[in-house]
């Protein structure tokens, strides 16, 4: 709804703020109220951003991460390759298989080894299940942010199925420490394949119910459609990744673009939408979940019946001198590791580039000029996980 007030406000915003970084002029400042959507806010997570509000419109936004910064990259230099796995999966406890998957791929390149085939399949299956777990949790929190408590309870309940599967496979509900350089820790238990297929069949029926109740709800659509529009050029320019990018019309998925492990044998389609608004950013992960069920079925089919799952390494392997850069598609987007090795058993430098850190650049871009009531739906649709961005 444009009216004279919002047009004059847009002019005022354009002339006083550039990317939200400049200080607002004095004349406008009297009417502004500074709010700190801080770590002690039910709608923010472990993250803080400062916003200035003029009535109902946001005119300035400044993200301030760093509340859970642990120094992951520095800690990696003090431990050898396999000792890095437990602390590297703590940034995203739900999606922990993916954040160590990329690390394992890079270390395997530096050690010059190759993982046995069955191990590659199990790794991919664990990665897909973890993606479902993370996306369901994200969907649940999205419901809370919009005030929809059923949208919190149902995905959180269905998520338990996948967590049970992962607990049967790896021994832990979250933070599995399952992927190690050289393969996976242990083989699948008996009966896992049947149980997994049964859960996936049930889950696909539930996905249909989610679509009916959550995504086709007129109030949900009103809250998220045409809200926070990120055009395709801006999305490419700002370098966002993952579902945010795919919701703006760019069909980029690391599993299709640069297939790692056994993904070049799996037939699946990249899910993307062209509408670029918050609804698309909420709908693309749902499509991804459906596609992930499909991928898991194919992986379970094509997996070799028996074989080694882990390549036995010597107990403190030294890396070849060089560097490696590997990336993996996690729940938030492309997760890449850049590891430099100087020939010793500890990495010289590990740099983690996570999807959350790249996506948060779009937050000031989208929030400035929008309603205060749109803040939760824009912020959480950017698929931002605060702990991962801080590392």
């Amino acid at each position, binding site marked *: 709804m444009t009216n004279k007030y919002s047009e004059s406000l847009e002019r005022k915003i354009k002339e006083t703020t550039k990317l939200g970084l400049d200080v607002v002029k004095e004349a406008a400042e009297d009417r502004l109220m500074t709010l700190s959507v801080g770590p002690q806010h039910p709608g923010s997570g472990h993250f803080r951003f400062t916003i200035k509000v003029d009535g109902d419109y946001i005119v300035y936004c400044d993200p301030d991460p760093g509340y859970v910064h642990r*120094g992951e990259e520095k800690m990696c230099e003090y431990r050898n390759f396999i000792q890095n796995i437990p602390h590297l999966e703590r940034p995203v406890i739900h999606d922990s298989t993916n954040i160590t998957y990329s690390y394992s791929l890079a270390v395997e390149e530096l050690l010059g080894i190759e993982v046995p085939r069955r191990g590659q399949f199990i790794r991919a299956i664990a990665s897909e299940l973890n993606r479902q777990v993370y996306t369901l949790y994200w969907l649940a929190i999205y419901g809370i942010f919009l005030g929809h408590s059923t949208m919190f309870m149902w995905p959180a309940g269905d998520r338990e199925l996948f967590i049970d599967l992962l607990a049967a496979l790896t021994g832990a509900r979250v933070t599995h420490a399952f992927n190690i350089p050289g393969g996976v820790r242990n083989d699948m238990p008996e009966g896992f394949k049947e149980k997994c297929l049964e859960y996936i069949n049930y889950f696909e029926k539930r996905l249909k119910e989610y679509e009916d109740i959550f995504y086709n709800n007129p109030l949900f659509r009103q809250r998220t459609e045409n809200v926070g529009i990120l055009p395709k050029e801006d999305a490419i320019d700002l370098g966002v990744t993952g579902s945010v990018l795919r919701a703006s019309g760019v*069909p980029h998925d690391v599993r299709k673009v640069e297939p790692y492990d056994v993904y070049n044998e799996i037939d699946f*389609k990249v*899910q993307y939408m062209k509408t670029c608004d918050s609804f698309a950013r909420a709908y693309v992960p749902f499509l991804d979940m459906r596609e992930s069920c499909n991928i898991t079925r194919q992986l379970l089919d094509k997996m070799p019946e028996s074989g080694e799952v882990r390549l036995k390494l010597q107990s403190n392997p030294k890396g070849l001198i060089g560097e490696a850069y590997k990336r993996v598609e996690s729940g938030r987007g492309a997760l890449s590791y850049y590891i430099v090795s100087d020939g010793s058993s500890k990495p010289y430098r590990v740099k983690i580039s996570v999807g959350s850190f790249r996506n*948060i650049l779009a937050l000031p871009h989208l929030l400035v000029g929008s309603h205060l009531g749109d803040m939760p739906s824009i912020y959480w649709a950017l698929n931002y996980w605060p702990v991962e961005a801080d590392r």
Partner: protein
Amino acid sequence: MTDVNNDRKETTSNLNIVEPDLNIEHSLYSELSSKFKDKVQLVYTKPNRIKVYVEPEHIIEVAFFLKSQLGLDHAESVCGTDYPNENVIEVIYHLNSYSHEELASIIFALSTKTDRNSSYLPSLLPVFKSVEYHERETYEMLGVYFQGHPRNERFLLPEDWADIPPLKKDFRIKGR
């Protein structure tokens, strides 16, 4: 909800290692070196990876050429590494392309080096908008000042950080 079937790579169902042809990587480098002659230096090419070294004075024009001519439109990450024995800090920009499909799998590592004790580099923010927060993090973690970046400030570290930039090799974690 349309979708796209990307059949760029031919898939084989057995896991024989396909010999990488490295054509795209070499063609990228040849285009780059034909424009900039000896200002750029090839460090290595691997399957889907290429690393090129540039001096800090020329980095902005090289980056601009990469963006406008070759189509690498965003940076995935900016990584600074401290090499105390060579007395340099190396900053690498990993570039990738969303708009050009044939370049979507290539990571182009644009690296530059600066002195360890007084590290100044021109900021690539005018060329790539996506490096903004990454450069800010490199500033606070390694002490590299990016000229032209509007906010060389603390980002992830706590407000009362009073020590040297933590990713330098001089900084030791207490007790290790």
